[in-house]
């Protein structure tokens, strides 16, 4: 599983984007980078939103689709149907039965920053994040801490956990009692995208 698949989602969910990664020397990063990647894939996910105003967290579910040419589509199915489409050009939001909304200009710029990060470019990552990683027998943890104060407005840390080359959770800590956790309970599936699916999700 690839880190670059999931970071955009985090970005979307913080409404601003941004992601952090690690220097290319990171063991975890190297592990993720060396995996053989399928052409297109889809993966179910759960999302848990914690907010200090709520006694219980809110839960969302959906399917993420990754297409090497078109980008990433995050389709929420519960409790409402809404799709976030992230391409090299920026972010579009497609509420069920409604036309696409293009994210404001500022968000588009942030999306571009994020997409740059997807290349796992060591120089870009080290400019904006510091990396803390821990390798244990039960799995590994990669923690990204923004070094850019502008990014700290949106989150304090991003913690990525997994085993071997499989990423299990991503947790974004926004601070002030607010966080989000993405949980991936199954392995990604190969996705033989039909034209209809591409039209629906991109």
């Amino acid at each position, binding site marked *: 599983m690839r880190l670059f698949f999931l970071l955009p989602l985090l970005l979307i969910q913080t*409404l601003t984007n941004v992601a952090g990664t690690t220097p290319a020397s990171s063991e975890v990063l190297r592990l993720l980078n060396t995996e053989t990647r399928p052409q297109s894939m889809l993966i179910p996910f759960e999302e848990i939103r914690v907010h*200090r*105003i709520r006694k219980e967290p809110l839960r969302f579910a959906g399917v993420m689709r990754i297409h090497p040419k078109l980008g990433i589509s995050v389709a929420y199915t519960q*409790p409402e149907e809404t799709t976030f489409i992230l391409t090299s050009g*920026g972010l579009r939001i497609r509420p069920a039965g409604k036309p696409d*909304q*293009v994210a*404001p*200009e500022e968000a*588009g710029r942030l999306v571009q920053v994020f997409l740059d990060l997807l290349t796992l470019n060591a120089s870009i990552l080290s400019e904006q994040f510091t990396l803390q990683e821990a390798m244990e027998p039960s799995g590994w943890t990669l923690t990204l801490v923004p070094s850019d104060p502008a990014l700290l407005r949106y989150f304090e840390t991003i913690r990525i956990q997994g085993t071997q080359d499989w990423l299990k959770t991503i947790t974004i800590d926004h601070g002030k009692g607010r966080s989000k956790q993405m949980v991936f309970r199954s392995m990604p599936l190969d996705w033989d995208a039909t034209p209809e699916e591409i039209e629906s999700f991109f």
Partner: protein
Amino acid sequence: MNSRSRFISRILLILYMGAMAWAALSIDWKHALSTNLFDLIDSDQHLPESVREAQTILQQSLSKEINLIAIPSDAAQLPALKSTFLSQVRAMPCIAEATCTGDMPTQGKWMADLFKRKHLILLPDWWDMVSGGTPTPLSDDELRRIADEAAAALDAFLQTPESTAYEAHVDSDPLLLIPALLRDLSGTSPNDSGMPRVEISAQLKDAPSSSDAVQSILRDIGLLRDSLSEAFPGVELLDNGFHRYASESESLIRAEIPRLNFWTVALTLILAFLFLRKPLILLPILSVLVMSAGGAFMITLLLLGQIHVISLVIGSILVGIAVDYAFHILLKREELQTLSFAETLSRIRVPLLTSCISTVFGFLVLLTNPVTAIQQVGWLVGIGLILALSLSAITAMAMDRPGIVRISRRLGLQPPLRHFRWDVPIACILGLACAALFFLRSVERDDIQDLQIPLTQAPLNEQRIRSLSGQLSTRSHHWITIGASITEMVDRQHALFSGIPATDGARSLGLSSLLPSSESVKRFEGFLQHSGTTFIRHFDSALDQRGYDPNAFESFHAEWNALLSQTGGIPSREELYQGMVASLPYPLTHLANTSGDRFWGMTLLQLPADHTPLEPDGNSFELAPLKTFNEALASYRKQVTFSVLTAALVVAVASFIVFGFKTGFRITGMPFLAVTFALGILALIHPVHSLFHLVGALLGACITLDYAAFVAQATDRTPPISIRISALTTLASFSVLATSRIPAVADLGLTVVTIVAMGWMLAEYHKLPSK
């Protein structure tokens, strides 16, 4: 032959040509011609003074608005296209500001103030919405119901994936005031047609009021189209704005001017070939026409600085009338060339005076007309006629070999008719009957759009853009509201628009969409005082029941308590409003503005196309240029009618004094009858009258007065040859105008043709032998 007078005449012609060359070099040709319909008429006269400046500012600003839409071949290109498109539009030399439709305006102090004071600003309208706007205190059950619904709305909002955008702020805004405001404001955006596209609203640096400015805008848009096509193959770029209308109108009118002039000259030449035995005499006639028309154009430009192309079209009649003078003088060429210069001036004094009293006087009367286009025609034709008369005489004197201009026998045809008995009483009864028919059948219609050739491309283009935006079923209206303070202005906006039922599908975007009325504030303060503490207790309880921790909303509670106790450094509303208004960014700058010591604000009102128009209430006025122009034209027509009738009375009295009762009666009677007969005929064939028919009637009456003065003074009964030439050339030129594609010009031409034809017939009748 007087060689001295020939020498003086030639010197004068050379001096004239030199003066014209100097004038041609002095004129700013780039801005010489206007295509802006707004330049044609001063429409502000009948509006209250307080509104005029606001209207002028807003009208100028709206004429700078331009819409650009890019449609990609692939919807996935939208985000990238949006970014590139916006940056390229902003980089266009003609663009001052640009923003994507649907994006929030640039954030700044106004947004910070709004966010910081959201409860102070937005709670009154929220309370009106949830309580139904009742001023009486609500029961405890009602308060509990409202509190429970508010908690439910918060819970539903947070269940949406996209709520993540506002998650960080819900603890200070659990009533969701800001999301509700944004939703309401986006409700004023056009419905979406489903077509993936990027729409940009931009403001031009300068209004496209001149041909040069329009061409510059079109050039910039062309470059933008090329650049976008290169980056996004298959992308389609649409644009709409005042420039599209100006461009098409100008190209149509530019084609109309040579067409009208060509046919006027062609018909005049045909007449000359038919009725003159030596057609070469046409060469000096054409020289006179070119010199007089060119001179009139340049002198008018020097006097006024700019001429509207419509005035030039109407001014084409100069050629048809001026040719009369050239004919008249050149027919006397042989005689003139034997006279001294002083004697010549003395000889042409009579026709000069006659012309000035009638035709030229008629055109000079147009200078008092409030319609700019008609004033310009008055200058253009008045100057042109004086030049034509003078140049005809000078050219005739300057020519070398005097020759006799022979008239075709056809012009001297004597009809086998005689005067009949009771002709005058019958004519008077017929005249009165025609006048009655006119008043009974004819309807008033003043439409500024009659001043331009009906456009086809620009409206189709706008229709396409409106269909893309889903706007086909609605119409946008711009309203201006005036007030001594922002609060008063907003109160007046609320008062005006509260009359439209919410079910009518009407939407408005103005400061009143954001700010509450004083009445709402009073109702909310009453609620706070009476039930503020109780409500917040119920709300906390409802939150708790829905799984929320009420204590986590401490910033909301702090603000609520500050409002309850009126503490916490709350500024006065007016002070807060003025601060926000001062920092509004484009395109919100027109929501509030100042004019002297008063405030004015624009409201964009979207009404269904079949909705009853909203009536002004004395504090709010619709900015509807076409409607305003039409009302102004109608009011000007009444003024002009009064002026024309007064002038006719003065001319009639003067004729009686100068020529005596009998001749004066004939001189005034003929134009009177010609006009009434013509009006009767027009009532049958074209039962509409406007300001331009009235102007046509004035010109026709002046020309007919010429004929009447000529035939009434002559004692012989020979056929009126000079009137025949004059009438034929006049009819030819005005008939060409009657075929114009510009309705106002066609109306004017038809009216003059009908009156001159009637006047000519009466002049012919007068010359018939008595029984």
